[in-house]
């Protein structure tokens, strides 16, 4: 997918699925993984094996692609305890996190 020369908010969504997107900085990646283990871990388990929330290991997530997972991270799942995390990360950060989950995060 191609992005246009200007990067207005309306266009950002279209750019999301592009592999050309800049990844988070190394510092931010560390922060995101810490958030994942500690705060997502409150429901999904620190080792992502599940708890009140479902497991987030690659096997458990195979039916969704990274874009779909990123949307769930950002907007939550209405009717379940999963809250929207969009106040705390950008769309591309959520996508990066979703990709890490799909690939599996080494413990």
């Amino acid at each position, binding site marked *: 997918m191609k992005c246009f020369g200007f990067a207005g908010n309306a266009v950002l969504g279209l750019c999301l699925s592009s592999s050309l997107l800049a990844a988070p900085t190394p510092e931010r990646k560390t922060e995101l993984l810490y958030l994942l283990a500690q705060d997502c871990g*409150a*429901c999904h*388990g620190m*080792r992502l*094996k599940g708890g*009140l929330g479902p497991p987030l290991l690659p096997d458990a997530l195979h039916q969704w692609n990274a874009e779909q997972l990123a949307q769930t991270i950002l907007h939550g799942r209405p009717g379940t305890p999963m809250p929207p995390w969009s106040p705390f990360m950008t769309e591309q950060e959520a996508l990066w996190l979703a990709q890490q989950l799909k690939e599996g995060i080494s413990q």
Partner: protein
Amino acid sequence: MRLNTFLLLLALLPGSLLADCLQRGTGDMGVIIERASGSVLIIDTSAHEVLSRVEGLGDLSHASVVYSRDERYAYVFGRDGGLTKVDILCGKIVKRVLQGGNSIGGAISQDGKLVAVSNYTPGGVKVFSSDDLSLVADIPATPFKDKHSKTVGLVDAPDQRFVFALYDTGETWILDMTDPAKPALTRFTDTGRLPYDGLITPDGRYYINGLFGEDGLALLDLWHPEKGIRRILDHYGRGEQKLPVYKMPHLEGWAVAGDRAFLPAVGHHEVLVVNMRDWQAAGKIPVHGQPVFVMSRPDGRQLWVNFAFPNNDTVQVIDSETLKVIKTLKTGKGTLHMEFTPRGEEVWISVRDKDEIQVYDTRTMTLKTHFKAQKPSGIFFTDRAHRTGL
């Protein structure tokens, strides 16, 4: 000669057998969970000192602890289904079993002989001998989809009972273990949508479930179970926008002061006040964020509250008489748990991101001392051994 040899052996034996074990009372001891490293610290609450670290307890995210009635053994419930019996005098694991795939705390029976564990996977409750951790009873929860419902809010109750809730199917079960060979179940199927935790009042009479799926709580009078589940604080959030919940509140640290009980609201930045005489709403206290633990100082004079992400760097103290917040402390990010010393002169607070335990004087509400712990979460003092529901 024989007597001399015997005496010599006697003199040597205890020394060699108990070389690593402390010889002291345990009433001022406790256990702190180090969640990321799968270890626990054994601490002296009088000396503010770490006595030892015990490792090898598996995944301790969301771990909790109950104590044997002699206050010597701590039973640690891990997330990975691990149940570990730790001798706190010797700083050693006595026995460890992997009893389930994914679990969420437990309870010890009135007589101290049985330890029950609440499991998410496979959904249900298992009961073990507190002595050797051998399985005594296996109570699967109601089937839900292709599994069994997760169980939550497991507490001990008088008359050798355990009480817990079924998260997925909205039930409350009483498990009577009077005859360990014949566990007797009483089921209530109208608890409400998604009970996420439970508490029992300090006298062991009332069991309350918090509900995630609706604004209200479910009450069961264990003196009169025939009356069934009663809804209390129905529609407590009426007319208010429900806020996202970044960490589920906990009910285990019950907060009762005088006639009033204090409970965390879900999806509202409030502590709910309920009059225990008639279970009618008696007020709401606006607080800094989504409350996680609302805990009463043992004398009921103050309530200490911590909060969910992103407000988990703060603790607030509420005056139980005026219902006003009287102190806001910035303890640091990842403030996860609080535990009062048995008579309440101190509260110990775990601050995950600072790798620190902070000890506050509750009278002055000021920091008294602090020490290091690796990513600490739950703090559990031995006096819990003699309190129902903890």
